[in-house]
């Protein structure tokens, strides 16, 4: 348009005339503190990564004794990665319907007087130390599950998942404990996402004669889809790195067994639990092997968390 001022030639003329805006001490201080805090986080992360790389890479040639009886370091890490991912995936399969249901109750079904305390209780679950979860899983949950496992092994052992000799401290027990530990974070995220559904979309569905559940399917789920994936991935990230509870509950020796069975005594082992159980007795090259496994876990959780965040922000842009 002709009325618009051409910024090109005018800009250098006016620039020197402009007085500097006044700077305030508080603003400067705050921005510097924020910057330093941000940098420290990056430095820490880089430091951990460097440590894992430097200490872990010497284990690349490990085999036999130094790889805990495995022929190569790759087999060693592979076995543990398998157990880690398997346990976490079972946990996520358990936690997903539970968290979606719980979050919907809090955000859409329960009256406000009930929703608040329930939400509080779920948040409190996150404050329970993992060692307590471990004790509870070991002493309370595992014996309770044993009869169910026995039944499964008698009637459904033709499914590879329920094959083998029964043990109450099996992978499934550990995964159930993991699921309970991931429940608060997944529920809290889902609750926030569900509650953000625009009122207009919900009313559009209700005015068409949708029941509450139909309204949720028509308006809430489509809106929350990417957020739900992100919440579940972040919960997976939490389950992958969980140490203490798994180390206490899961009955596994060494790198464990490469098996699909979830209820047997011969379980796969997870990276975090393996390190927790074996680090105290390790020395020399074995420590390098263990740190290499730690590096693998670091990368895995990093990728999963990154994917979760990426999907979450992508969903926000779309909405």
């Amino acid at each position, binding site marked *: 348009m002709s009325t618009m001022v051409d910024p090109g030639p005018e800009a250098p003329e006016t620039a020197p005339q402009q007085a500097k805006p006044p700077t305030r001490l508080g603003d400067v201080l705050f921005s510097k503190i924020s910057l330093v805090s941000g940098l420290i986080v990056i430095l820490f992360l880089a430091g951990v990564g460097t440590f894992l790389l430097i200490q872990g890479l010497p284990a690349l040639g490990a085999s036999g004794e130094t790889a805990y009886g495995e022929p190569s370091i790759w087999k060693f890490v592979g076995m543990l990665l398998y157990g880690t991912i398997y346990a976490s995936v079972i946990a996520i399969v358990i936690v997903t319907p539970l968290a979606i249901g719980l979050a919907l109750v809090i955000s859409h079904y329960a*009256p*406000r007087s009930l929703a608040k305390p329930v939400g509080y209780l779920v948040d409190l679950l996150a404050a329970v130390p993992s060692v307590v979860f471990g004790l509870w899983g070991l002493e309370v949950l595992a014996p309770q599950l044993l009869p169910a496992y026995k039944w499964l092994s008698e009637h459904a052992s033709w499914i590879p998942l329920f094959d083998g000799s029964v043990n109450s401290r099996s992978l499934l027990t550990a995964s159930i404990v993991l699921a309970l530990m991931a429940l608060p974070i997944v529920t809290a995220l889902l609750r926030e996402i569900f509650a953000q559904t*625009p009122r*207009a*979309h*919900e*009313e*559009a*569905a*209700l*005015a*068409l*004669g*949708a*029941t509450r559940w*139909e309204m949720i399917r*028509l*308006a809430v789920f*489509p*809106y929350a*889809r990417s957020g739900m994936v992100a919440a579940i991935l972040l919960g997976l990230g939490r389950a992958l790195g969980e140490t203490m509870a798994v180390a206490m509950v899961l009955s596994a020796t060494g790198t464990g067994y490469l098996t699909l069975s979830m209820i047997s005594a011969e379980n796969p082992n997870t990276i975090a639990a393996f390190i927790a159980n074996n680090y105290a007795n390790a020395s020399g090259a074995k420590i390098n092997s263990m740190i290499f496994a730690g590096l693998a876990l670091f990368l895995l959780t990093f990728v999963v968390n990154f994917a979760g965040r990426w999907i979450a922000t992508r969903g926000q842009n779309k*909405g």
Partner: protein
Amino acid sequence: MAKSIDVKDLDIYYGDFLAVQGVNVHIKARSVTAFIGPSGCGKSTVLRSLNRMHEVIPGARVEGKVVVDGQSLYGAGVDPVAVRRQIGMVFQRPNPFPTMSIYENVLAGNRLNARKMKKSEADTIVEKSLRGANLWNEVKDRLSKPGMGLSGGQQQRLCIARAIAVEPEVLLMDEPCSALDPISTSAVEDLIHELKSDYTIVIVTHNMQQAARVSDDTGFFNLKAVGEPGHLVEFNPTTKVFSNPEEPATEAYISGRFG
């Protein structure tokens, strides 16, 4: 299909708060009835009570009667979901479902009612509803595109198409043009004129010219006083309300000498 509505001694509460008191109205079938009045006087609340949408707010309840063609909306055992399937609603801001195509948006209500629909049957409903909403010619080549890609006025007509796709008995409109530009407003007003032959329409509007243009009957709502509940001041044929109102308060409001 179109039905008349009788409202008798309707009081609407939000919890302990009495929002609207003592509304008595007879809404004729196949006509357009406009509710006008200042903000916060309860006209939208009354509109929403006609298909029980006000119950979305916790604690909302009514006393009195709303009878649609002899059937009480608030009788014992009446399911609000069933009420809303018969009485459609269009909102202030266009609200098509953002993840659905134009085609699926139109069918959203039908999909709730009927589990299975033949493709040809669905196509017929979509074309009929979009034609009914004066939108068919503008969107017939991009039915699979998202409904959010349309302009505001087109989105609002898409919402009207979605509402009439289930062939309701009554169509409620809560300030349907307040988020639209004058051109789109005129398109929606033309549409209201056409829909009148098939549906009973109740419209809430802040625009008095609009009420005068589209409606057959007009109800003027106002607060009795500050802090008092809203009530229906006058209900008469639109021509009478705008030329020779019964109540001085109505005349003051429509001539701009309000308060």
